[in-house]
């Protein structure tokens, strides 16, 4: 017993040394800014004046009593819903199909689907504003042949969120797909082959074998889709709509940026960011409570 403690103390010293670089970087760029944002959320400030005025909870009350906030939170959840379908469920299905059903051109499909992940989303957003231009873009012209008029998506509630989610997915899809494919590909072939010999239909193989056995990666992609997805959407919002029309495409992340660097209300921005983080945190706890229990970890 005492031997163990001695060893532990010796190792502790080594471990702390190894962790110091990480901790320094995290303290400067994560922990300190995080605490400072909490501090700022109680002050009225515009980033320029030398003095900050303490206002207590007023920023939180302002944000909560603003009707736009609720619109923006609604948008945030619509974004989450779209992103989950396009970047989590569909890649799951594609990975399953590519692994089990398609036997030819596998390498080509994998690399072609992954290719957009290399390209900057800013570049993608600019290209898509051109391609999806409702009057002169190629998509509008092709739809015109079939007599379909393309909606002016950048000015319509709902449409704008869908299109911006699709643009984000263009970049994120490939990465999520590759991660899920690797996980599904790692499932022991014997189990799947045995099920196939027993003539188990493919959808049953998906729900009863593949989904449970790749769930550890699945949950990772699920979380990444929500948390990173919302931050990725920031780029097309910034490049294409700047949150408009009338906040219809703004989400919680973009709005916090808008408050801070367009309206220069750091207090509001900080309060909104903290609340967004709390929402993420609640989602996370729910996820651990209800989903994590059924997850299969190989090790």
């Amino acid at each position, binding site marked *: 017993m005492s031997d163990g403690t001695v060893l532990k103390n010796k190792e502790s010293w080594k471990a702390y040394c*190894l962790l110091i670089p990480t901790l320094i970087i995290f303290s400067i760029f994560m922990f300190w800014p995080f605490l400072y944002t909490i501090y700022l959320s109680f002050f009225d400030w515009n980033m320029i004046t030398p003095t900050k005025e303490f206002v207590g909870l007023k920023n939180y009350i302002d944000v909560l009593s603003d009707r736009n906030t609720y619109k923006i939170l609604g948008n945030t959840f619509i974004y989450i819903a779209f992103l989950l379908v396009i970047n989590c469920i569909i890649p799951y299905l594609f990975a399953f199909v590519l692994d089990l*059903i398609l036997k030819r051109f596998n390498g080509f499909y994998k690399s072609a689907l992954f290719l957009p992940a290399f390209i900057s989303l800013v570049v993608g957003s600019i290209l898509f504003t051109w391609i999806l231009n409702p009057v002169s873009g190629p998509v509008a012209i092709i739809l015109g042949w079939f007599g379909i008029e393309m909606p002016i998506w950048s000015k319509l509630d709902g449409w704008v969120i869908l299109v911006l989610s699709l643009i984000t997915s263009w970049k994120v899809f490939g990465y999520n797909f590759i991660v899920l494919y690797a996980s599904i590909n790692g499932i022991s072939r014997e189990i799947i082959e045995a099920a196939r010999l027993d003539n188990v239909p493919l959808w049953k193989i998906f729900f009863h074998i593949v989904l449970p056995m790749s769930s550890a990666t699945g949950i990772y992609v699920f979380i990444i889709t929500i948390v990173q997805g919302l931050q990725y959407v920031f780029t097309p919002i910034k490049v294409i709509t700047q949150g408009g029309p009338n906040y219809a495409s703004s989400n919680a992340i973009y709005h916090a940026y808008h408050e801070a*660097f367009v309206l220069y209300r750091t207090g509001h921005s900080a309060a909104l960011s903290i609340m967004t983080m709390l929402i993420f945190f609640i989602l996370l706890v729910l996820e651990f409570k209800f989903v994590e229990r059924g997850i299969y970890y190989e090790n």
Partner: protein
Amino acid sequence: MKIKRSVAIPWHIIFIITIIILLYPIVFALGSSFKTLEDAYNNVLNIVPLNPTFENYITFFNSLPAFKITMNTFIIASVATIFKLITSFLAAYAFVFLQFKGKNILYFMLISTIFIPFTVTMIPNYIGYRFSQQRLGCYFAAACQCAWYLSNEAVDENNPHLVN
């Protein structure tokens, strides 16, 4: 195990359509980059330019400090990669092979930063950036703030040092 063709072929078609949609913007950009302005507006559907021209590339290299921009990108990307690799290798080794006090708490603290949206650290980082810009020189600041810089126009508007 054989898969029926009637199952496989529709999926091949779905995959090919998806790939065409995903790769179209890239091909579109490549094609348009060799078109004259007139050609680009009049023949939107033509991917292959009618009269290929290097005009756009010449304008680009003449009007922007292309080398400087590329170097900045390269410096930001490599510094971020090097820092990430060094710090995460060391930390991962400590977490996997060593036993120490507070291991679980530290691990949880580092992992939970995934769930902190960048807006939470954005304002203090910007203030820190402004400060380090004035006191420490631009490359240090640029390298450290790389991830944030990419998503933030305010930085390059306010800090011409990054561009020239």
